[in-house]
């Protein structure tokens, strides 16, 4: 088998293990290319049957409109259930407080909304599209990653994970985060998207839009960014390499209109995918700290 066949077969196997081992799993869907790839893999794993889990989107309210439009079309085509957890609701009920200032982002608030959504629906497993090549803390995480009743990851006490045997047994209140594409690289995902002809939101491809430069990164000019007189708006040709919400995802200048261009661009890139994520730049251990707190 070709390596893409191998990665696909492994991911399908993991998705079916989730279906077999858990009573109330969910697939965390962000509208990004990795979770879109997961949905495609779920179709391969379970069709012509229904998915044994709903899609769950943690909505910061600061999304790219293109992503939400794409999400709704995808869900309509699939005929599967979509559950949305709103960060706005967590703010309105006083569970979290909105950050202030120029670099305010709702990204860190998501964790609370995520954990509340998990508790509200009683999810015992959450499938996510994280990959080990993205970030050095993720490089350490098991494919079945157990979270305690506070949603926390304990990197020093991970269960041994042998061969393709995944131990998903947990106590009530705990949950397992499952990462079926752990072993895929960014380039693998793009090659797979090309091979399978998977549709993506338009913002992954080069387009023209208003941007500003903040902390050396190109950010989409939007009301969510608390723009002031120091921000100079430019009309530039850009695309997004990774898609989070508008306050933490930076654009890259790009002429890549087609998937072949994107693959070539990534192959030659000297910057990592998460180099365009403001949320990872907070500190050396930003991702590890967020995971310990219950993040995806």
């Amino acid at each position, binding site marked *: 088998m070709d390596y893409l066949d191998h990665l696909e077969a492994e991911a399908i196997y993991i998705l*079916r293990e989730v*279906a077999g081992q858990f009573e109330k799993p969910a697939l965390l869907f962000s509208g990004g290319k990795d979770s879109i790839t997961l949905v495609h893999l779920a179709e391969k794993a379970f069709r012509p049957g229904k998915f044994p889990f709903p899609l769950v989107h943690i909505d910061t309210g600061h999304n790219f409109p293109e992503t939400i439009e794409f999400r709704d079309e995808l869900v309509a085509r699939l005929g599967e259930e979509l559950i949305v957890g709103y960060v706005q609701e967590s703010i309105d009920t006083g569970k979290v407080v909105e950050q202030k200032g120029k670099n305010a982002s709702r990204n860190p608030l998501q964790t609370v909304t995520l954990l509340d959504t998990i508790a509200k629906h009683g999810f015992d497993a959450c499938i996510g599209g994280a990959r080990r090549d993205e970030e050095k803390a993720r490089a*350490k995480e098991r494919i079945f990653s157990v979270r305690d009743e506070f949603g926390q990851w304990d990197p020093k006490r991970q269960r041994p994970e042998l061969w393709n045997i995944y131990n998903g047994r947990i*106590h009530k209140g705990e949950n397992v985060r499952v990462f079926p594409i752990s*072993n895929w690289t960014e380039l693998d995902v793009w090659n797979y998207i090309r091979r399978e002809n998977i549709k993506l939101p338009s913002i992954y491809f080069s387009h023209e839009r208003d941007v500003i430069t903040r902390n050396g990164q190109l950010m989409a000019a939007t009301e969510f960014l608390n723009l002031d007189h120091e921000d100079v708006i430019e009309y530039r040709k850009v695309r997004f390499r990774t898609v989070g919400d508008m306050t933490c995802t930076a654009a890259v200048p790009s002429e890549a209109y087609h998937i072949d261009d994107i693959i070539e661009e990534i192959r030659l*890139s000297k910057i990592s995918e998460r180099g365009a994520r403001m949320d990872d730049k907070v500190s050396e251990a930003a991702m*590890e700290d967020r995971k310990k707190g219950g993040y995806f």
Partner: protein
Amino acid sequence: MDLLKFITAGSVDDGKSTLIGRLLYDTNSVLDDQLEAIQRANRKNNDGTLDLAILTDGLKAEREQGITIDVAYKYFQTEKRKFIIADAPGHIQYTRNMVTGASNSDLAIILIDARKGVVEQTRRHSFIVSLLGIPNVLVCVNKMDMVDYDQAVFDKIKTDYERLAQSLRIKQIDYIPVSALKGDNIVTTSINIPWYQGRPLLDFLETVQIDHASDNKQARFPVQWVIRPQTQALHDYRGYAGRVVGGTFEVGDRVVALPSGFSSIVSRIELANNDLNTAPEGASVVIHLADDIDISRGDMLVKQDEQPAVSQRFEAEICWMDTRPLDLNQFYLLQQHGKTAKVKIQDVIYRVNVETLQQSAAAELDLNDIGKIQFKSADPLAFDSYVSNKANGGAILIDLRNNLTVAALMITEPVD
């Protein structure tokens, strides 16, 4: 393009993480923003060069202590191959994490510090590599720069390792003298080691042939999930979803469902609405049978003339991975693929002293102990020996009190 999965193992401070950092760095797999992060962290070696170990030590606790606690997976590719590295901890306390990394590797790089030679951790790691059935070992004698690139040092270590390997089940062993810190024999041939005629490490990794011994494996298909849409249009649809873990299935094969023993014929194989004629080892597919027989998750389809042992009692090699010792009065949960069954360990047949590789009688097994046991299962299980088919000869034990994975089992044979 094919994929090579390898593990790196060695004693604390043998320079494993540095070796991987060097491989990534010298193959241009480290990107600018990651390099900047290393520079910001400002961790330097004694000679002022960048400490590349920080590329793989992904946890705060690891960076603080300068040790590897858990496996880090790293990905890189060259023109010739794709690689997945499992960077495993060397410290004895984290042996179970090394076992995790070893279980999915095709090749093991064992690092030996040229100044220290073969030490206890070398023996332990080599024994685990052998136990887990990794066919190829590459011994990298590291820190050659600190012994003046002396051939006699390398030859002595090679002789010592060959002696150790005589009592192990490793098919192919190769040796390379390197300095991960200086880059000798990593990507390019070292001018400091003219007496070494072989290939540098990267060249070796790009071209090494792995003997998977998979050619004559028997066909096995553990069922993970039954697809039954029960809609009007697909009223009679019933597909068995799973992954082939040995051999090949073809439409028309006469198969038996285990443990029930009912037989039928493969009428259709599909993947995402595409009909296939065959499903090779490793493929995730949906299989349909000509007859409606009772099959559910945990059952296994096999070819009628290639059946594994079905029994409630087996002997197995075991690696104990929990701080709480093996308790002969306790039920454990055995998991093989998606199949689970309660088991009782009836006997510890022996424990292995990994320093001498001698077997001796033992009443219990503690953290990191390796030995052999006999167990009895509440339900019949279908196992191959681990040596003949890793994917259908391995299992884990789960402690039902805390749900932790406490042991790895490598099945040797059924007991009548």
